[in-house]
């Protein structure tokens, strides 16, 4: 189990990383990749759909302002051994939120290596691939503008 009191920051960063991966995955991926995980848990909070107000900053770096909302689905569950998992995913997708909370819980148990290999590693590979493909297309549109100088010998 993660112990936030002693080894907090490092564990926190690791957990933040996997929760982010689960939140950003395309619809259906988390549920599909975690289909074979054991589903023995009790709900602490059944999946619910809601909104989060996204904020920006004036001038990119200044005072915050409310930009608009995004849809989010969240839930919390508890494994038989008492481990608690939270799922927060973008959009309206209860099955993915459930799977995300399950993965979050199992990642804090001895099953973490198996869960990482089954769910997190493929998600990471897919996300890296998606991002690299768009970055490569953007790079191909990088432009050099030249100003035309008049009157040079």
């Amino acid at each position, binding site marked *: 189990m993660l112990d*936030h009191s002693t080894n907090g920051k490092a564990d*926190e960063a690791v*957990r*933040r990383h996997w*929760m*982010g991966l689960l*939140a*950003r995955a395309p619809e259906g991926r988390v549920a599909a990749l975690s289909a074979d995980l054991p589903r023995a848990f009790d709900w602490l909070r059944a999946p*619910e*759909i*809601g*909104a*989060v*107000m*996204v*904020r*920006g*900053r*004036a*001038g*990119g*770096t*200044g*005072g*915050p*302002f*409310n*930009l*608009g*909302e*995004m*849809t*989010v689905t*969240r839930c*919390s569950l508890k494994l038989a051994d008492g481990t608690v998992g*939270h799922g*927060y*995913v*973008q*959009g*309206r997708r209860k099955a993915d939120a459930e799977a995300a909370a399950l993965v979050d819980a199992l990642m804090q148990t001895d099953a973490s290596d198996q869960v990482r290999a089954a769910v997190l590693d493929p998600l990471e590979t897919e996300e890296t691939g998606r*991002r*690299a*493909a*768009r*970055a*490569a*297309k*953007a*790079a*191909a*549109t*990088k*432009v*050099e*503008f*030249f*100003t035309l100088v008049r009157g040079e010998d």
Partner: protein
Amino acid sequence: MYVAVKGGERAIDNAHAWLAEERRGDTSVAELSVAQIREQLTLAVNRVMAEGSLYDPDLAALAIKQARGDLIEAVFLIRAYRTTLPRFGYSEPVDTGEMACERRISATFKDLPGGQVLGPTFDYTHRLLDFKLAADGEVPDAPVREPSPERVPHVTEFLNREGLIEEAPADDTTPPDLTREPLELPAERALRLQALTRADEGFTLGLAYSTQRGYARNHAFVGELRIGAVAVEMDVPELGFAIEIGEVTLTECETVNQFKGSKTEPPQFTRGYGLVFGQSERKSISMALVDRALRWEELCEDNVGAPAQDTEFVLYHGDNIQATGFLEHIKLPHYVDFQSELELIRKLRREAGADALAEAAE
């Protein structure tokens, strides 16, 4: 006073049944799926997300389908839906400096750190109808190039280094939220930016254009326009720390505007800011120009009486749902109100002896 009417249920049901049929159109033509709208009418989806003030491409696409492509009606559906959602919280302010830029251009500097990236743009197209699109056609893959890992700093960041442009120092004041409290004046900049980012694109464009034509001209250059995905982080109380809850594509525009010095400060460029959901370039530039015009007071400029300087005028008329709600309600039955108007005008005419005049004319 508006007095309601009763009745007409059957006619209303039939009208809605016909609406559904017309929405579907000719059944020998394949039906449009929500996924097709999301993937192929992306900029319409982006506009509905921006003005509906809810980032959810699937819902925006559904709204467009339901509204038969009437984007203001689609925005209305999204605004109505969002009121049904519980609010989980507020995100940390997004860091646009860390945006994965798919487009990033500057009209003021040709050589800038991170380079100019055109991205998937209509710029430099010839605006000729492409009849190939009317036929089914395979699209060739877009060319790729190895991306360079360099940082893509905001243009204002390196202008700041020379002190040539006003700074936007970070602060963490909790901003007002017009979805929670009614919009009241005077409106601080945070409230104006919230209202502008969800304001009607056409209204914002018209106002921005008016400043360019001389109604509170502010000599704007697009210092930087960037489009791409940013991470959204939120503090989750049950965890005790912030996690990423997703990512949104945003369009950010920073304008570099003409300067004015004062007795205490040397001349400096000033700034306008636009940040909008989705790839929403025209809206983002318009927002930045109008934001800059509305800042006249804090920048000690003259109020020349231009519409774009009038906070009340801009903020109270930019919301297309408020506007269309009030505008369109006048087509609904007003029989009782109108009856009283009729009686009034008959009375006034009697008093003016108009009936006698009319009789005399016959």
